[in-house]
């Protein structure tokens, strides 16, 4: 892999070609906030908190740093007024799904509760980390997405859970550790599906194989 020269926030950095901007920045100790990124999983690009500006002058544009691959001579800025303002708006929006966003992020970008937004406090920001981990790394398919657009959500498939969750890491449920919001509750430690107890679930509802999925979709927003 060849080395390329990139400039991040005015700093000249050597990085390996094929890296994303996010990887190169982190390697150089430059902070870029993310909520849907995890080194073990393919980049997904859903939270958009990692947006940065690339290029110069007229050709400046906004890209998601977790997805954009660096090339020789790339100029990146991670904390311009524009970018920080966008991050503030994104955090403002997310606060209406999850009111526990780390204070450090909120303070850094000046995000605060917005009185004109409507609450949809599901505590799940649909970053998909749990689903992607369960599906792509473990091949277990216990978790999945249903619905699209504003009613999209994460649900659990109990039959799969009964089969696979007991074979996951014996000490703890791994999906829980990928979840940035902590919505997959830790109350399920020690009372795993194999014990015939409740299942770990992504808030607000879990899917029961006997319940039709449409009913669940209808309940979104009422829980």
């Amino acid at each position: 892999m060849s080395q390329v020269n990139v400039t991040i926030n005015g700093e000249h950095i050597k990085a390996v070609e094929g890296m994303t901007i996010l990887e190169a920045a982190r390697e150089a100790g430059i902070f870029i906030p993310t909520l849907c990124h995890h080194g073990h999983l393919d980049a997904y690009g859903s939270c958009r908190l990692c947006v940065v500006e690339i290029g110069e002058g007229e050709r400046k544009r906004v890209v998601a740093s977790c997805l954009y691959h660096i090339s020789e001579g790339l100029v990146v800025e991670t904390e311009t007024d524009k970018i920080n303002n966008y991050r503030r708006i994104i955090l403002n929006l997310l606060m209406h799904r999850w009111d526990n966003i780390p204070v450090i992020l909120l303070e850094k970008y000046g995000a605060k509760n917005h009185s004109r937004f409507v609450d949809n406090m599901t505590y799940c920001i649909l970053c998909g980390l749990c689903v992607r981990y369960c599906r792509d790394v473990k091949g277990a398919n216990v978790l999945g997405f249903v619905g699209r657009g504003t009613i999209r959500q994460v649900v659990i498939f109990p039959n799969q859970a009964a089969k696979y969750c007991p074979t996951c890491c014996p000490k703890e449920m791994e999906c829980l550790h990928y979840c940035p919001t902590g919505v997959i509750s830790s109350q399920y430690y020690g009372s795993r599906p194999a014990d015939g107890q409740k299942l770990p679930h992504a808030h607000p509802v879990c899917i029961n194989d006997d319940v039709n999925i449409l009913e669940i979709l209808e309940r979104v927003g009422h829980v």
Partner: protein
Amino acid sequence: MSYLLAKVDQIIDGYGAEKEALVQILLDIQHEFRWLSRETLLHTAARLGLPMNHLYNVTTFYKHFSLVPQGRHAVSVCVGTACHVRGAMRLLDRVSQGLRLSPDETSADEKFSLKTVSCLGCCALGPVMVVDGKYMSNPTSNEIAVIVEECE
């Protein structure tokens, strides 16, 4: 094996049981039975070697799939842009009132299903209501009531 699953098998085999043909297979099943029952989904998943989370993801993503039985009479109100500016929302209100159904609902006796669609391409008639393939241009409440009466 039931008639139902034999029919599903026939559809799946028509596509060589290819995973990639999932959406096409589901479309055919939906067309055949007017909805996708849990039984047919489980069977399709097993035949194609796909997990159920994938099937539910697909079936709840695309608008055409229905996971509940549909009424015998399909009533659609076009809410495309052309119909919208010509008063489709008022028409939808009247139809809703006449059928006592909200959009995307099916009556308890499975007589009617009410849906909204985005553009039927007959913008000249707008706002349009379609009952079992018959087009009607901006019917009044009384006219809607007559149609409701006429349907079996």
